[in-house]
């Protein structure tokens, strides 16, 4: 086990509570009971499961280099120091993270080879289901996990040793009390005087009267020596907190803790204190593993220490990088786009001048570029671009799930519209037509109403439902309907599927421009991508959802839209409906 060395056996004997292992198992069981596997979990429930300590110990790689590892969980990424030049890097870096019942529990560890001048290269990765690992009966808690090749997950590039275990809740409380004592103990004697105790209660944002503070101090000072030591403080926090909240606010980040239960408040405070004081071995504060591998961000992180609880995230087009929440792993990931392209897209799409330039002839230019690109990508010569493309997106294209071997693709476009092996994309609740599914591998935004979509996402001033669907298809029911946007990125599987089961009623082609569909353009008030781009509007008539409008919108370069089903066909949810390819 990994109990703190300061937590003595005597304390264990005196404590009538069950053993550490039993307590942790109980927490896990409780967690399991709360999670209904048939019910889709939401992120609303902030119900902590506990603190998990994760230590990245060492790795065995297949060549010598200077290595660093990144640990990602949910919206946080942490990194180790850079190792010596070796094929057996040793880091022994530890991080405490909160594992929530309904929160992310799939941790990803990425291993990078580092370069002094150029950017670091991702070599291998692994994913760990923390809930699964923590529920295993293991004495040393050590896991040796294969590191997978980023471009072909069936191959391994080395292995990594990781220790992870739940921190004992009592240990967390004791540890927290020690930290508090150390901060408030001005004269350094390991005990709190009444004056220091008063400062501590004030720091918690607790407005209790002076008489109450005196009462609490006397209550805490069990042996009556006029001081409060670690154990007495821990007992006070444990016992008093049961009756009334002593801790109203976190002294580090100011978070109001009343919404948490006692243990969760202490978990919050422990982590906040650790991050606020830079007490942890692993450097934190990155949003994605890609950021953590950047040299300049590493330097920035050495200059600043900030609590992860008050970092203002910038999403969408306002961020310097486009961040996306991965629903499967519940982690933030960063979209790979060349910095120059982002800058030029901003210049064009987010300024009136840029859009005016587009109006004056560039619309035709975008169309002709896309047509030219279509011809190029249909040529035999284009096949040589396939390996380069795969290399660029090596951690985002899983070659193992492509239906045919790469040699079979004679042009880039053939590869671009690649099919996947049967079963690669399981259809949720396949037999139930009252449950709709996602129509593409994509970055999705969904809104209950059109008004919400305008408020949160589509900033083009001329956007309207009628503008999107066209007069013939738009009805009052669609006008006040819900909207789901599936945005495909270049590396994605480019075939789209039906989200519902029903009869394909119609196809209406609407000619138009080929602006980019990147959030930078969609979030621009000057650009009306969805109502001005070339698109095909189809209507599927269903028994459960009524009519569903399915709009396939072309974009710069990828402007060719092909449907593989015809009017009058019955399509089952999850069935292929068509694809996008290079062209105008």
């Amino acid at each position, binding site marked *: 086990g990994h109990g703190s060395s300061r937590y003595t056996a005597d304390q264990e004997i005196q404590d009538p509570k069950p053993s550490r292992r039993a307590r942790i198992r109980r927490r896990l069981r409780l967690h399991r009971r709360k999670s209904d596997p048939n019910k*889709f979990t939401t992120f609303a429930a902030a119900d902590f499961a506990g603190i998990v300590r994760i230590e990245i110990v060492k790795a065995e790689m297949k060549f010598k280099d200077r290595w660093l590892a990144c640990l990602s969980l949910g919206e946080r990424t942490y990194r180790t120091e850079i190792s010596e030049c070796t094929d057996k890097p040793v880091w022994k870096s530890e991080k405490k993270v909160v594992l929530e019942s309904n929160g992310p529990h799939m941790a990803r560890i990425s291993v990078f080879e580092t370069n002094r001048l150029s950017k670091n290269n991702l070599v291998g990765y692994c994913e760990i289901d923390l809930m699964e690992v923590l529920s295993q009966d293991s004495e040393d808690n050590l896991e040796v996990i294969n590191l997978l090749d980023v471009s072909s997950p069936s191959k391994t590039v080395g292995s990594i040793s990781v220790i992870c275990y739940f921190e004992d809740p009592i240990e967390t409380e004791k540890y927290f009390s020690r930290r508090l004592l150390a901060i408030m103990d001005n004269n350094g004697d390991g005990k709190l005087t009444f004056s220091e105790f008063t400062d501590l209660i004030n720091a918690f944002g607790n407005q209790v009267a002076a008489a109450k503070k005196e009462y609490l101090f006397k209550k805490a000072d069990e042996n009556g020596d006029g001081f409060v030591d670690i154990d007495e403080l821990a007992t006070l926090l444990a016992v008093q907190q049961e009756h009334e909240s002593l801790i109203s606010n976190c002294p580090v980040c100011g978070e109001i803790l009343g919404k948490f239960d006692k243990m969760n408040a202490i978990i919050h405070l422990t982590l906040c204190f650790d991050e606020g004081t830079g007490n942890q071995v692993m450097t934190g504060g990155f949003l994605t593993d890609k950021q953590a591998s950047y040299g300049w961000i590493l330097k920035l992180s050495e200059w600043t220490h900030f609590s992860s609880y008050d970092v203002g995230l910038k999403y969408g087009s306002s961020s310097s990088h486009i961040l996306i929440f991965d629903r499967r792993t519940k982690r933030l990931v960063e979209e790979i786009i060349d910095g120059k392209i982002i800058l030029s897209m901003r210049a064009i799409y987010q300024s009136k001048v840029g859009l005016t330039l587009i109006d004056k002839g560039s619309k035709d230019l975008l169309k002709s570029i896309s047509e030219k690109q279509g011809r190029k990508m249909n040529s035999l010569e284009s096949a040589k671009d396939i390996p380069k493309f795969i290399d660029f997106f090596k951690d985002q294209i899983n070659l193992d799930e492509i239906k045919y071997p790469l040699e079979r693709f004679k042009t880039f476009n053939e590869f671009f519209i690649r099919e996947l092996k049967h079963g690669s994309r399981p259809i949720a609740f396949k037999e139930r037509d009252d449950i709709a599914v996602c129509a593409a591998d994509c970055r999705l935004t969904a809104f209950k109403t059109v008004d919400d979509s305008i408020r949160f996402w589509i900033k083009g001033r001329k956007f309207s*439902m009628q503008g999107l669907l066209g007069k013939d298809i738009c009805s009052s029911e669609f006008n006040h309907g819900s*909207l789901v946007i599936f945005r495909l990125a270049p590396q994605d599987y480019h075939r789209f599927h039906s989200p519902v089961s029903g009869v394909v009623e119609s196809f209406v082609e609407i000619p138009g421009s080929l602006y980019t569909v990147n959030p930078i353009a969609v979030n621009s008030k000057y650009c009306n991508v969805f109502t001005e781009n070339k698109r095909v509007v189809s209507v599927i008539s269903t028994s459960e959802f009524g009519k*569903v*409008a399915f709009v396939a919108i072309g974009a710069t370069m990828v402007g060719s839209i092909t449907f593989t089903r015809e009017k009058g066909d019955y399509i089952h949810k999850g069935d292929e409906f068509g694809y996008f390819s290079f062209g105008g």
Partner: protein
Amino acid sequence: STVICVFEKDAIQIDEDLISNSERSLETLVYVGMRLGVVSKRAQAVKDISRLEQCKLE
């Protein structure tokens, strides 16, 4: 390229995690076949009433 699906008013109850991310202006990475939402209770009720109306006492 992009696909937009428009559902009729009150026809679908989209999964809450997708809605809450979108309300933070954050896109969610999803794959074909993942659950999107369920037919809304209101739409279900309207359908049930319509079925009842079609029933005949014999």
